[in-house]
């Protein structure tokens, strides 16, 4: 799976988690944590999705804003982790 496909799969999943009161379209660059696009339960679901979809384990040191705050960031993290 290449990076573009990873971005696409994460974006589809993130769009399912978007809170009802978010009025704008979510893109790969949207700061999904900083801008509170998903709620706390959604964030946990997102981590679970990343681990199962890409067969990786997010260690405590991986659970940072830098790795999780946008679909682009997550995709970069997944690519690094799978190398």
């Amino acid at each position, binding site marked *: 799976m290449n990076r573009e496909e990873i971005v696409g799969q994460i974006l589809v999943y993130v769009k399912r988690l978007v809170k*009802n009161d978010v009025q704008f379209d979510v893109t790969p660059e949207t700061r999904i944590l*900083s801008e*509170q696009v998903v*709620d706390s*339960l959604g964030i946990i679901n997102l981590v679970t999705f990343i681990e199962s979809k890409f067969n990786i384990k997010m260690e405590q040191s991986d659970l940072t*804003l830098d790795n999780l705050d946008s679909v682009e960031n997550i995709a970069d993290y997944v690519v690094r982790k799978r190398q």
Partner: protein
Amino acid sequence: VKKIVILGAGGHALNVIDLLLKEQDEYEPMGILDPAAKGDVLGVPILGGDELLAKLRSDGIEYAFPAIGFGSEVNNGLRRQIYEKIKKCGYKLPNLISSKAFVRSGVKMGEGNIVQAGSVLDTEAELSSNIAVGFNVLIAHRCKIGSHVTFSGGVILNGGICIGEGTFLGMGCVLYRDVGSWCKISPGTVCMEAVSDRKIVFGYPARCIPNLQVDR
């Protein structure tokens, strides 16, 4: 019997009113305020929105209780806002303890707390105010709980630990060390280490994510 007005008509209010009707005999719910609801809850009439709060106080109602739960649209920040609005109007907020709960020696409580059936407040536990303790919760000896905390059903605390204000504890989580303020602990989490302020915590072993949610 003292008349009390209830704020909120959702699922948590259902629990609060059932406790008032069947598991205590000091307070009688005279009405509910909720701008988004009509009709009644377990026979207690919904009178209108929060704008009636001041009028009811001037009509002589002395007691009020915030029956705001926790879910996708509400959080402990909103629970704090409603609590403060009630205080500002000059109401007294009782502690509502189910007759089926167990409160041991030396427990201290602020005001506006609810303790549901099956829960145990162990010896010398200290609760601040506006804390919701769900069903079958164990708050062990000498624990200290900050204001506006929500305990979902089945939470277990180790003795002597502190929970900071505004923290949400999901169903069945087990906490062994202190937890900071405005954290969200996912259902079923087993937390063996201390948790600092503003974290989302999940799983076993527990993992943390920064909590950037601004509770309104």
